[in-house]
């Protein structure tokens, strides 16, 4: 039953992603001023939105961990697994954003990178969560989990700054596509559809990886607990 459920979710996810790719590359019309390179939009923006979502998952799980670490150990351990998985998937999405951005900026702006507020705060966000993952890699135990949770909480504070950066400050990065004023927006229904399908397919993909990753991490925790118990019994 579990195997069937996993197979069906993987198949649905792959089908959605193929459909999203078709929508972005073929179904959506070519853009008037930028040409085909504008199709990067169908990946860049959904990935940015989902990076925010998965960092938010990590943030909430870290808060739960911090609140329950002394009072309710089983809940705290589960929250820790969700926090780790959320940060990992968020870093993947954020990496895609930081890769597709320069690929788009080079032909359209003439530069790969610039230190404007949007780009810089996004890079800082990525660095915070990469250091979160490094911390988890190089240390172990409840002390590491607490430190990691605090780091995830502080990292999440950068998310609203990234989001507001091109609203608060003048940036190279354009204004938000949705709700960005007169010089922003999409009216073409095929473009909107391609965008929506890619948000959906990448969200489903990210949630699938998240659930797998939490499952693996929970197994890992069980193994470590069993090892610790065995070591205590041997003494």
């Amino acid at each position, binding site marked *: 039953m579990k195997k069937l459920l996993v197979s069906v979710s993987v198949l649905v996810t792959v089908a959605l992603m193929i459909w999203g790719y078709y929508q972005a590359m073929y179904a959506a019309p070519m*853009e008037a001023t*930028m040409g085909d390179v*504008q199709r990067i939009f169908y990946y860049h923006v959904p990935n940015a939105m989902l990076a925010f979502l998965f960092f938010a998952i990590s943030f909430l799980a870290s808060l739960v961990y911090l609140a329950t670490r002394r009072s309710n150990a089983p809940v705290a351990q589960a929250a820790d697994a969700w926090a780790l998985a959320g940060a990992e998937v968020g870093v993947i999405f954020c990496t895609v954003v930081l890769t597709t951005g320069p690929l788009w900026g080079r032909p359209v702006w003439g*530069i790969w990178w610039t230190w404007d507020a949007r780009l810089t705060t996004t890079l800082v966000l990525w660095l915070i969560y990469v250091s979160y993952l490094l911390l988890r890699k190089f240390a172990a135990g409840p002390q590491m989990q607490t430190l990691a949770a605090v780091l995830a*909480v502080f990292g999440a*504070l950068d998310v*609203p700054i990234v989001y507001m950066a091109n609203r*608060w400050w003048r940036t190279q990065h354009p204004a938000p596509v949705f709700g960005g004023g007169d*010089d922003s927006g999409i009216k073409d229904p095929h473009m909107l559809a391609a965008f929506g399908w890619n948000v959906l397919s990448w969200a489903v993909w990210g949630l699938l990886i998240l659930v797998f990753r939490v499952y693996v991490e929970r197994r890992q925790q069980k193994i470590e607990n069993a090892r610790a118990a065995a070591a205590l019994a041997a003494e």
Partner: protein
Amino acid sequence: MRIGAAVVIVLGVIGYLAFTAQASNKSYFVTIPEMAGMGDKAYSANLRLDGFVKPDTIQQAGTHVNFVLTQFESHNPKATGDALNVKVVYDGTEPPPDTFKGDAQALAIGTYGRDGVFHATQLQAKCASKYAPAAPGAAPAGSAAPASDKRASAAPAPAPEQVNNTTTAGQ
């Protein structure tokens, strides 16, 4: 408790940033009227100047480009004779991007000379976040001739006297 105090401090910093956003707003680039209002400081600073490329003013020869940066797009009702213009001379290592053309919003990075000419060493285009489908048969910048063709024709930069009137692809 300690975490709570730290969160309050960080949130305070974010709030302060938001509160002072209006003042620090001008950091990434200056507009033409702002540069005009800078007085003598305009000549000494390395500036990133923002404006719209005045249509039909681009004179390009490889990586040497002369053009006029103006305050408003040509279809803006404010684009009258009173609009501020700045002549820009660009000498860089690469030709400007394909999106650099008449009415494009662009940033010129360099120094403002006392001759009234802005000497740029880098050009960056800005892009709108408004997307519309291309008209059938039209060739937007990104789909024009492959980049290798453009580089090949741009590589042996001719002397400034030989400046021709070629504009960028897609016009």
